[in-house]
């Protein structure tokens, strides 16, 4: 029995023996993995491996010994988790001992120790003993890079798991590590070493007397000067090293006395990157330093920063210098002082002021901007700094403004003042007893008003911005100031010729009106109201261009100031009143006038959206009024006046649609329910009771046999019901859907049938899944099928199909694929084919009026990608199968789909579509050409190898298209010609002469934008393959 057991044990050990021999003596690499796998699966124990290795571990020949230890280490690296505590003790003793061995053996020994450093079953004390042995026995910097890396890994592993033990070593550990890394040169190792130093400091290991040594051993790399070799597989960038070294240097105030002199020295150097790095490091240091660390170096630091900003050669150095000054000041501002210490902030700021103030007063103004930037950087650091600097600089600047008489000089000064005022704003949130600006308020106001009346536009613009900032200071401006300010804004926004000025004035009015609604209500709105009335009478007398533009600006100003609920209550009635006047025929107005009013209304509606109260007010006031106007206009009269017709024009109705939907999307549920209970009956039953001035000459029955004018108003119904939140229940929905469906297939008026189709689609998209939805869909499908088969309303039915498809595609409805297939089938329809091709553009694009996210439609984010993957194969197949005369329809449909797709999604798919795209280049349709070119252009840059195969075709086709009658196609073709130069030079070089000749022609194109592309493409072709490119 015993013999059998011995044999069984013998057999595997025999195999192990063979593997070991193969590795050690046979110099084969395979067995190591085999042995490790066997140990892992439990066939042998580590002890058995050691026994099998036996003599090779003690072999007198160092190479054999190294080989033996290497095998053991490799096994341990894979199986360290299986080791028992006792085994670990023995192994560690063995390895520590081997550290004294021949240098050939050391790499394998370190590997083994690295494996053991990962062991969980490591007895206390062993980590310290391993590290001591390494520090003592190994001269790390004479090892190759890989082995040095192993040592760092051992240290990192122990630091991660045995922090307490290592800390027991005290400063010896730090010293040991300093010796290990001293002289390290490899960037890969440096990244690890910097990480270790950072941990030493941040985990609070004892540095003892070695602070300076630790600083020396790391700071010697500052500033990092490293350029990664080309094709570097390790991917270490200069920036990685810079950041990890900076993390070390800026990690502790204890380095300050050594680091700050070094930083000053490097800022003063000539090398740009050293300057930048030093300033950025200084910036980082300020986060941990306090006033004690900075104290002795402040004068030098200031001198260096000042010099860099005053004599800057690079905007980046300037920006970093300013950022460093900002951090320094912030650091001084927040330092906690001992009771007896002097506050350095004041003296530091006084220094800055002393050096910068006088530049602000120089008559030649040479250094004003750099000085102002320095002062502002410091002032932006803290409240105290801001007050200190502002109180000293502001009187000076106010004085200077009056000393200079030229507008552009004044503008510079005002811009500086503005900068300081903005900083003041930054510290506003903290409550302060004294407001440093209040003393200067009168001077500032008079100066701003002076600027606002100056003929220089630039000075005006700065004045307007300053006024806005002053207004934002709480409790600064008096009622009198505000009245004056509003007066100026009124003048600028109505009378000023320069568009920049009046746009700025409008913006300022908008900002200030929300802060001072009372001032604007009492001083601006009445003036605008008067202006509007004057405009009405002017319009009645006939248009005069200047007055007309003034009138438009008045409308814009009204909407701009409607930022506060109390103002809306005054402006909205004014605007609506104005519309009534137009409708009553008291004023002669074209559609532009009504559209302008609607645009203003829409802007007011947008401003009201966020405030539920104004939102409700706007909806309740404006929507019935607009509906009443439209309904009245739609009533057939004996002699329909021109004026009323205006309200029914496509563009006017579209403008009204956007007002109504903007006023509806943010409605509260209660109001929405109330409103929907009025508006739906208005359209279905002609119930006009809620409309103002509702004595209409006849009934309103848009869905019955009402006039065509009445039917057009379905667009307004669409605007309302399609913008409601999804949870609002729509009364009489069933009837409404049937009516819409019927109207949508009604031939005669394209506008109303499309509006009905859109409305139907919009409701369908939001309707919850279920039986009712299925019924609606079935109804729609039946209507579509019967309408498409023949008859006069094929094109209307097609529009319905398109919109229903879109509604379902957006929400990923399962039926959408069936509808898309139907649509695709129509591509080969002789009559509807081109329309179907264009339909794909509608499917892929975002609508503005219905099916929008803002209008609560269900729009899945990836619907375009999904549509692409689901349908493009079928489109391609359809293209190949289609007869020649309808092929362009497929190409066009395809190009619409490709064009709307995000480019990153498209790129990997394009090579499979390439042959089709090349064919599409010959398609006569310019839409197809354009979209194909825009697909090919990124492909030339991203997939040059694939494209190189077709270079001959591409060259010919691009050049042909560069003389296309369409300017957009010419531009796109030239961009592709440009991109061709990015193909591998040997591929394109043979075409150089031909290209340069051919590109001479578009250089003389009649359009500048085309010439611009031609110039850059031709320039690039000239450079191809020439020296110096």
């Amino acid at each position, binding site marked *: 029995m015993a013999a059998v057991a011995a044999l069984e044990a013998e057999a595997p050990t025999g195999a192990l023996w063979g593997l070991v021999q193969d590795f050690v003596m046979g110099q084969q690499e395979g067995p190591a993995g085999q042995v490790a796998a066997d140990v892992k699966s439990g066939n042998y124990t580590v002890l058995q491996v050691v026994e099998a290795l036996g003599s090779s571990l003690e072999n007198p020949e160092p190479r054999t010994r190294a080989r033996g230890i290497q095998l053991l280490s490799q096994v341990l690296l894979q199986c360290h988790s299986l080791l028992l505590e006792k085994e670990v003790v023995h192994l560690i003793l063995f390895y520590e001992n081997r550290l004294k061995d021949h240098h050939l053996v050391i790499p394998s020994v370190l590997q083994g120790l690295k494996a053991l450093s990962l062991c969980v079953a490591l007895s206390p004390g062993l980590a310290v003993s391993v590290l001591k042995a390494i520090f003592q026995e190994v001269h790390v910097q004479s090892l190759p890079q890989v082995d040095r890396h192993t040592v760092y890994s051992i240290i990192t592993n122990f630091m991660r798991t045995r922090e307490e033990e290592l800390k027991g070593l005290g400063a010896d550990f730090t010293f040991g590590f300093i010796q290990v890394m001293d002289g390290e040169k490899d960037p890969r190792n440096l990244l690890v070493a910097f990480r270790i130093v950072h941990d030493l400091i941040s985990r609070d290991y004892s540095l003892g007397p070695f602070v300076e040594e630790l600083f020396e051993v790391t700071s010697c790399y500052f500033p990092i000067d490293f350029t990664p070799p080309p094709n570097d597989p390790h991917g270490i960038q200069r920036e990685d090293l810079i950041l990890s070294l900076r993390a070390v240097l800026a990690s502790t105030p204890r380095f300050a006395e050594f680091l700050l002199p070094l930083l000053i020295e490097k800022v003063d150097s000539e090398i740009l990157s050293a300057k930048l790095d030093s300033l950025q490091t200084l910036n980082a240091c300020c986060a941990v330093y306090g006033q004690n660390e900075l104290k002795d170096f402040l004068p030098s630091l200031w001198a260096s920063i000042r010099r860099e900003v005053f004599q800057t050669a690079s905007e980046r150095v300037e920006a970093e210098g300013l950022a460093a000054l900002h951090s320094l000041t912030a650091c001084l501002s927040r330092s906690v002082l001992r009771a007896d210490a002097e506050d350095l902030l004041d003296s530091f700021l006084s220094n800055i002021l002393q050096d910068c103030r006088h530049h602000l007063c120089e008559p030649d103004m040479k250094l*004003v*901007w750099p000085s102002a930037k320095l002062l502002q950087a410091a002032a932006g650091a803290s409240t105290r700094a801001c007050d200190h600097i502002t109180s000293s600089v502001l009187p000076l600047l106010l004085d200077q403004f009056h000393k200079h008489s030229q507008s*552009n*000089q004044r503008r510079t000064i005002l811009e500086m003042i503005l900068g300081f005022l903005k900083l003041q704003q930054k510290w506003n949130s903290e409550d302060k007893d004294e407001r440093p600006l209040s003393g200067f308020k009168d001077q500032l106001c008079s100066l701003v008003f002076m600027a606002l009346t100056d003929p220089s536009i630039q000075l005006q613009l700065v004045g307007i911005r300053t006024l806005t900032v002053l207004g934002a200071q709480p409790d600064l401006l008096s009622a009198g100031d505000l009245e004056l300010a509003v007066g100026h804004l009124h003048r600028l926004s109505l009378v000023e010729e320069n568009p920049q000025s009046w746009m700025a004035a409008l913006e300022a009015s908008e900002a200030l009106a929300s802060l001072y609604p009372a001032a604007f209500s009492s001083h601006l709105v009445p003036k605008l109201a008067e202006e509007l009335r004057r405009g009405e009478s002017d319009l009645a007398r006939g248009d005069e261009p200047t007055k007309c533009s003034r009138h438009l600006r008045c409308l814009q100003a009204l909407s701009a100031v409607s930022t506060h609920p109390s103002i809306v209550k005054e402006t909205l009635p004014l605007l609506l009143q104005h519309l009534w006047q137009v409708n009553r025929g008291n004023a002669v107005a074209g559609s532009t006038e009504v559209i302008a009013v609607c645009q203003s209304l829409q802007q007011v509606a947008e401003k009201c959206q966020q405030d539920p109260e104004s939102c409700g007010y706007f909806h309740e006031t404006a929507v019935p009024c607009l509906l009443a106007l439209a309904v009245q206009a739609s009533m057939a009269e004996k002699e329909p006046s021109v004026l009323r017709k205006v309200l029914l024009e496509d563009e006017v109705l579209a403008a009204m649609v956007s007002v109504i939907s903007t006023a509806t999307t943010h409605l509260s549920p209660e109001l929405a329910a109330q409103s929907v209970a009025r508006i739906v009956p208005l359209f279905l039953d002609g119930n006009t009771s809620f409309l103002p001035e509702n004595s209409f000459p006849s009934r309103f029955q848009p869905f019955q046999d009402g006039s065509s004018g009445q039917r057009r108003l379905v667009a307004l119904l669409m605007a309302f019901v399609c913008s409601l939140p999804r949870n609002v229940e729509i009364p009489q929905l069933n009837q409404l859907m049937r009516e819409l469906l019927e109207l949508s297939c009604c031939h005669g008026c394209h506008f109303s049938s499309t509006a009905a189709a859109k409305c139907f689609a919009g409701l369908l998209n939001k309707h919850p899944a279920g039986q009712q939805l299925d019924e609606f869909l079935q109804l729609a499908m039946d209507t579509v099928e019967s309408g498409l088969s023949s008859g006069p309303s094929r094109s209307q039915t097609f529009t319905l199909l398109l919109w229903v498809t879109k509604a379902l595609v957006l929400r990923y409805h399962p039926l959408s694929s069936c509808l898309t297939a139907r649509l695709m089938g129509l591509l080969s329809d002789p009559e509807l084919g081109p329309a179907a091709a264009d339909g794909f553009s509608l499917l892929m694009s975002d609508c503005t009026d219905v099916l929008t996210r803002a209008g609560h439609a269900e729009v899945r984010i990836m619907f375009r990608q999904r549509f692409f993957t689901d349908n493009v194969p079928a489109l391609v197949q359809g293209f190949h199968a289609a007869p020649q005369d309808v092929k362009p329809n497929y190409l066009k449909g395809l190009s619409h789909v490709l064009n709307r797709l995000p480019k990153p999604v498209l790129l990997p798919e394009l090579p499979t579509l390439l042959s089709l795209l090349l064919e599409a280049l010959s398609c006569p349709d310019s839409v197809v050409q354009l979209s194909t070119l825009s697909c090919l252009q990124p492909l030339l840059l991203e997939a040059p190898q694939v494209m190189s195969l077709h270079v001959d075709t591409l060259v010919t086709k691009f050049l042909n298209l560069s003389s296309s009658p369409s300017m957009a196609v010419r531009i796109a073709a030239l961009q592709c010609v440009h991109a061709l130069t990015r193909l591998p030079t040997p591929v394109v070089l043979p075409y150089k002469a031909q290209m340069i000749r051919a590109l001479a022609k578009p250089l003389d194109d009649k*359009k500048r*934008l085309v010439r611009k592309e031609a110039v850059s493409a*031709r320039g690039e072709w*000239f*450079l191809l393959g020439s020296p110096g490119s």
Partner: protein
Amino acid sequence: MVGGGSGVGSGLLENANPLIYERSGERPVTAGEEDEQVPDSIDAREIFESLFLHLTHLIRSINDPEHPLTLEELNVVEQVRVQVSDPESTVAVAFTPTIPHCSMATLIGLSIKVKLLRSLPQRFKMDVHITPGTHASEHAVNKQLADKERVAAALENTHLLEVVNQCLSARS
């Protein structure tokens, strides 16, 4: 982060004042330029812009490290010194060397000339010269630049072509 200025054409400024951060921004595209039918004639700004961009590269490459110049200080080419007549097919560019003894004046002129040759329709007659009174050997340089044969020969010179191409290469 602070102060600064917002852009208008620097032509409006008298430049005594140090608003050096103002640059005329990229030319806005007008409605007329997007209209297929309206022809836009070649104007000074168009030429100036393509030259300015390329001169930025040029000056960077020949910049004297002792006296680093910022782009705003260049003014080697200004739009007012570019004269174009599209109907008469003529262009005249006057450039201002960075300093009166600038040794690179010929090279700058040459590279402007090459850039124009490559970017303008063949019908154009072009004249590149130094802004009067801004260079010590203005006359000699102008003469060289006007001499077709010399320009052609200079461009046969590989070394010179290399430098010019370097300046023209937008990739650098």
